Each structure stands twice: as C-alpha cells, then as structure tokens.
C-alpha cells in the first residue's frame, strides 16, 4: 500500500539548541496523530540520535517532518539530510558499538531499532540522508 504524505515541515538544524526545538516539534506532530507515549518517546529518542550525528559528523543540515498515512495507519516520517563527508561504510556504521567519534556507537543502530522503518543513503563527499518512520500504533 502506498504511503501518502499529509503535511510537510522543513527545519534547519545548525546548532545544539535546535535539537530541543526539533524534538518539541516532533512531539507536537506525534501528539496530533494520537501516537502513544512510548512510541512518542522512541521516535523522539531516535530523532535525537540522528540529529546529533547530523550536527557532529555532517556539520548540520535539515530535517523534514511529515505526517504520513497508509490505509488506516498514521505515522510520522522524519528525513535528515546533511551535506557532510558522508559515510564510507554504511554496514559498519550500522553495527552496535561502531563509532568514528568518541561516542558509544549506538546512534544509527539504536535509531533503527526504535523506529518501524529505516533507510539510509550516503555518498562519500556528498552527504547523508537518513529516513525513519514511526506508526502511531506501530
């Protein structure tokens, strides 16, 4: 079944405080489609991980917040886009504990576990696009 986008909102993320703003915006959207508290928390935590990656490794970027629908299900889809150095080895980056920084290396694999759908595309030198989708009752 097709996933249709009902609303779109693009937010620039350039500094750490933008993360708080974006988390709040995601929460507003999630509440609007009556997403449960646990799923909200998972979605926002996943978003937080990806935002940090974008700021730390991608030098900032933008986040597209969409309300999407598929049949009777509603969900929130987030697309994080940066024009950073890109990820040379995505398979390695998706492994728990892999980090080129000094972090725990839970960001990407954790965000994948916390969302219903996950997609990552990256080209070295061009940037990275990460999409996550969480259904309201997923």
């Amino acid at each position: 079944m097709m996933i249709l986008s009902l609303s779109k909102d693009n937010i620039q993320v350039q500094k750490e405080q933008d993360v708080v703003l974006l988390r709040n915006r995601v929460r507003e959207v999630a509440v609007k489609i009556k997403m449960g508290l646990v799923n909200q928390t998972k979605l926002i935590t996943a978003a937080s991980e990806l935002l940090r990656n974008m700021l730390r490794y991608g030098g900032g970027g933008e986040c597209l917040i969409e309300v999407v629908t598929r049949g009777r299900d509603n969900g929130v889809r987030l697309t994080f886009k940066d024009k950073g150095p890109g990820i040379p080895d995505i398979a390695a980056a998706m492994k728990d504990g892999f980090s080129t920084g000094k972090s725990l290396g839970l960001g990407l694999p954790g965000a994948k576990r916390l969302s219903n759908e996950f997609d990552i595309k990256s080209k070295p030198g061009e940037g990275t696009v990460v999409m996550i989708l969480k259904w309201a009752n997923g």
Partner: protein
Amino acid sequence: MDKIPILRMGNFLLVTIQVDLYDRLALDLEADLVQMVNKTSSRGVLIDISAVSIVDSFMGRIIGNIASMSKILDAETVVVGMQPAVAITLIELGLPLKGVHTALNVERGMNLLKSMIGSDIQDEEENQDDDTFSE
C-alpha cells in the same frame, strides 16, 4: 546561559533536571557535579530525572560517567524517577545503564543512598548528637 542547579543536603548532592537537556548542558552538569562532590566531600549524588522525557545515548553516557567519576571520588550515585517510556526506550536503544544505581522515586533513592553509605553517616550523626547534647 542555562545551568542545572545542584543542591547540597547534608552528605548528599541533589540534582533535579527540569529542562530538556542538550549536549552542552549535560556536559556542564557532569563537570559541575564532579567538582561539587570534591568540594563538599559529599558521599552521595541523587539525580532526579522524573521531568526528563528523553534520554538518548549521549545523556545515558553522561549519567554513566557521573556515576563512575563520583565513584572514584568515593560517592555513590542514584538516578531516580525515570519515566517508564524512557526505560523502555533505553533498553531498546541498547543502553542498559549498567553500573548506575536507580530507584523509583526520591524517597527510595535517599533510602538507598543512606543504606549504601549508612554506617559512615551513623557515626557522624552520633557525633553530632553528642555535640548538641553537650551544648
């Protein structure tokens, strides 16, 4: 600039996080707390996160760091009031917060701290009682 207040209560330091944390704020808290433990020779740190709706891997790491750093300075750390949704998310994220003591609420957290370093405190309290008695 934002700052998270650290309260001193006898032998313990009390931190209630009431705002959404961003990375810088969490790092500052880590540094402030460890310095306070040293300066006040506190034996315990109680961190109340009941108002925190999101704990991601970075904040989880900071909480773990605070606990290990305080431990080296001979202070125990107890994290209290975690929201159920946050606990579910942390485990799914892959961050079980090993090595961090937790309690359901502030009251139980305080009791846990007291029991962990209980004998030392009792001695000190007894000494204090003696002081007041002689006055």
